[in-house]
């Protein structure tokens, strides 16, 4: 079995190209999971465009792509109209929604391709694009056990877990973990306290080989961003510690954060994990990085 995870877009909110973000990257959310021969894509931010170019360059015929969207805010769908495999007749895209018969993702992918927004209409895409529905109970897709979990984010968002032969990856971005903490008020007063994550989410993430987690804000920034739907990076660390994950990629970097600041945040996160006696490996998700699990 082989599992490759590649980060095509790691930035939150809006693309931020430029020399200040060169290391971690300026494209918005997109992660490719290649599990044996199956292709799973998490989110269609602007990073999706380059993934499409890469897939096109390999000249593969009859691609089947399983697409999961945390939600439909711009920074998670804007790459879709530029995703070249969507234009090729021989390809199939399966767009997953969570919940019975709620094809919101599919509808909004179509909606953003109306003439007012984009020159090519969704109906002109050549690929076979169909909706599929995930329930909250895990289901098998190409032999991969996939499950969803509703997160704290304005307008809803979902985390996804992918598991095969004992290897587990959790993609959990756009999640204001801090709003869900069992000791929320205390943890805002005393930042050193372990931030207690609700048990159901800890179980969902438990034992992951890789957790990709929203860690957009510093502790200092967060009080001015409450309700915006994102977590303190150190809260993502506390999730990783409590769920006993092996590696945690801090994801959805703030567009105002230059590479140096993200580096500092990651160092602080590593120190925090060590303070809690955890050996979880924390790193900053970085565009172009590929892990083999």
């Amino acid at each position, binding site marked *: 079995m082989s599992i490759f995870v590649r980060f095509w877009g790691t930035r939150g909110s809006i693309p931020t190209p430029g020399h200040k973000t060169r290391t971690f990257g300026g494209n918005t959310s997109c992660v490719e999971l290649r599990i044996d021969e199956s292709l799973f894509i998490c989110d269609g931010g602007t990073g999706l465009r380059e993934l499409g170019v890469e897939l096109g360059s390999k000249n593969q015929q009859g691609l089947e792509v399983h697409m999961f969207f945390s939600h439909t805010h711009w920074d998670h769908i804007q790459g879709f109209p530029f995703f070249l495999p969507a234009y090729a007749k021989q390809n199939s895209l399966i767009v997953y929604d969570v919940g019975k018969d709620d094809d919101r993702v599919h509808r909004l992918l179509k909606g953003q391709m109306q003439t007012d927004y984009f020159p090519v209409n969704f109906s002109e895409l050549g690929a076979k694009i169909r909706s599929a529905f995930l329930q909250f109970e895990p289901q098998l897709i190409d032999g991969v056990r996939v499950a969803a979990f509703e997160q704290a984010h304005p307008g809803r968002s979902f985390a996804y877990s992918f598991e095969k032969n004992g290897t587990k990856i959790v993609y959990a971005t756009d999640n204001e973990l801090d709003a869900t903490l069992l000791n929320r008020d205390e943890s805002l007063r005393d930042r050193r306290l372990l931030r207690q994550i609700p048990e159901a989410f800890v179980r969902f993430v438990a034992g992951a080989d890789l957790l990709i987690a929203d860690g957009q804000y510093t502790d200092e920034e967060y009080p001015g961003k409450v309700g915006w739907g994102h977590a303190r990076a150190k809260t993502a660390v506390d999730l990783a510690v409590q769920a006993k994950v092996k590696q945690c990629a801090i994801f959805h970097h703030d567009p105002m954060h230059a590479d140096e600041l993200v580096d500092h945040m990651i160092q602080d996160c590593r120190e925090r994990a060590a303070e809690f006696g955890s050996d979880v490996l924390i*790193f900053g998700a970085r565009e172009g990085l590929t892990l083999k699990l």
Partner: protein
Amino acid sequence: MPKSPGEKDRTLDAPTVIGAARVQPGARQTAKPSVLQQIGGPGAPRDHRLDLDEMIVGRSVQVHISIDSGLISRRHIMLRRSGPEYACEDLDSSNGMYLNGVKVHSATLREGDTLQIGDVVFVFREGR
């Protein structure tokens, strides 16, 4: 020399000059190349200049950067140039490749990155 009537001011044609400056063929050869500074492992300290589009690092004497360490594979990693950048890729080595302490399969290298294979440690210095 005085301009003749109706002659255009040549300084206004500058865009062609700017365009030429941006795409000078061969400019890469005169630029400062990227370097892998070896700071740990057999032979350190020393610098390995990256001047080919593809370079292999390993224990074999037949690779571009050969390092006599029993902890690295004969062909351990590949460095590949793409435009002004280098990317590194693990060639299914026995002990893997670590970028800034994280075991990775491949990555685009950035100034100051630490790359470790076995007991060999490099710092990447980006060319200009």
